[in-house]
């Protein structure tokens, strides 16, 4: 027996190497995460620093003047709200109903699977393609002209697949045991859906819808040819009017108005991104609130 026997459980050189690799991998993955956060931080900082001074009550409540080189953004702000609200009115009932059908009624066969696949693919269609569809279908074929209605319906078609997918996922997160419990008391499918499944899926459905709102409000391509105007310093009076919109306004003053002050686009972008972030924050707060009350 040698005098310097290694103590029990002593590490070997192999362990040391593994530990080094462990450290490297962790550092690398952490770095990638930091890299991911960096652009967000820089963008927000830039917008606040550059665009912050432009923002005022007046900026939010007056129309642009002097060939859009001065004044506020009121028509664009109001226009975006119109577009989003009308798009939601069109897409939410259809999307939720379709998701309920697909999740609760449709048999699990090749047709249903094909439909589900088609919906996922539809979500991947570039927005400019939706824009062209909107021009063909709503502006020309249904003769809505370039209007809030045509633009919102185009946005609705574009967001529909995402509404369907998020709703279906929330429905399927409701435990099957609840449904079986209802069926075994002689509840029909609809009674089960209305009394148990929908109330329990509501938070997820609403979260999906709110996220949709934030996405819709930033879209430019689908509204560019279907209802959003270059410059229109009046508030829309109805769904058949054209309107300005935040996203297009930003595009216009950045690229089409050479003598716009440099801070102006930053200000518009800051308002737009604040709208989106506020929406997302609302959705997260709502989810946390509902999850806190849920006990399963």
């Amino acid at each position, binding site marked *: 027996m040698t005098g310097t026997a290694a103590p029990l459980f002593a590490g070997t050189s192999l362990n040391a190497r593994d530990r080094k690799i462990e450290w490297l991998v962790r550092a690398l993955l952490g770095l990638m995460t930091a890299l991911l956060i960096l652009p967000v931080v820089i963008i927000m900082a830039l917008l606040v620093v550059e665009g912050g001074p432009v923002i005022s009550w007046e900026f939010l409540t007056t129309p642009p003047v002097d060939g859009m080189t001065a004044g506020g953004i009121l028509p664009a702000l109001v226009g975006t709200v119109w577009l989003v609200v009308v798009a939601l009115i069109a897409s939410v009932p259809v999307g939720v109903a379709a998701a309920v059908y697909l999740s609760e009624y449709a048999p699990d066969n090749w047709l249903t699977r094909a439909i589900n696949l088609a919906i996922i693919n539809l979500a991947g269609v570039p927005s400019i393609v939706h824009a062209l569809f909107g021009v063909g279908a709503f502006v020309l074929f249904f003769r809505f002209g370039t209007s809030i209605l045509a633009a919102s319906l185009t946005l609705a078609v574009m967001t529909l697949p995402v509404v369907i997918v998020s709703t279906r996922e929330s429905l399927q997160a409701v*435990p099957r045991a*609840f449904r*079986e419990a*209802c*069926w*075994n*008391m*002689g509840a029909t499918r609809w009674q089960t859906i209305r009394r*148990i499944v929908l109330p329990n899926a509501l938070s997820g459905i609403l979260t999906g819808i709110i996220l949709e709102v934030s996405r819709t409000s930033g879209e430019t391509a689908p509204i560019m040819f279907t209802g959003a105007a270059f410059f229109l310093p009046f508030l829309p009076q109805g769904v058949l009017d054209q309107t300005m919109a935040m996203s297009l306004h930003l595009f216009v003053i950045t690229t089409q108005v050479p003598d716009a002050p440099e801070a102006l686009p930053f200000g518009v972008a800051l308002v737009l991104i604040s709208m989106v972030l506020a929406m997302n924050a609302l959705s997260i707060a709502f989810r946390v609130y509902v999850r806190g009350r849920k*006990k399963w």
Partner: protein
Amino acid sequence: MAEPAAAPAPAAIATRGLNLWYGDFQALFDVNLHVKQGIITSLIGPSGCGKSTLLRSCNRINERLGYVRTTGSIEILGQDIYAPEVELVQVRKQVGMVFQRPNPLPLSIRDNVSFGHRLHARGHRVSRSRKEELVEDSLRKVLLWDSVKDRLDTLATELSLEEQQKLCIARLLPVKPAVLLMDEPCSALDPKGTAAVEELIWELRGEFTILIVTHNMAQARRASEETVFMLIGKLIEHGRTEDVFLNPQHRQTADYIEGRYG
């Protein structure tokens, strides 16, 4: 105690030549089951022998899975439940089911109990006091009233598992079922809970026909009047519980009961 051989009442559950497939997999082979009214019958056998499948066929809950196919017939109280004039909802009212994992609805205790009744009492005005009475009667019958009477409005999902399982039995009662199917109702419970739920099941016999699937042979032995033994989709033996356990007629039954497999 009910003497099974005595009154020749019509069968609560009778299957004739029942075969069942999940897709290409045959889970039940020519099952001829005859469950007498008003007693507790336990269904034993190793995992995958088709006991749960057989149980779930008895109120047609299986057919929610689109790929299930059955041949043969199932009669409940003498009525073929696959007959065209049969309304599925009416079958389910008569044949209640209790699951392995207690599955109270995410509602208050009170609403859990009155849920089934509310579904079926549409159109009739039911007075508030009558509803309260129903809730109390049902909870009393499952020996739960005294422990929950002061918190009927709390969420049912906050009860202990034992209480949840009792509640799951209680909520079937206002619909007035004749048959209660129980799929390993005690397997999620601790020994104390198991004893309490077994005691409850024993209390309910006579008023309801109870068919209970269990993995626990001791439970079948102490808490049922007749026992059915199944093996790989076939019904091997059915007799009075004492007879099946003390004097099994089939080699496979004897081996299973002695714990040689399963």
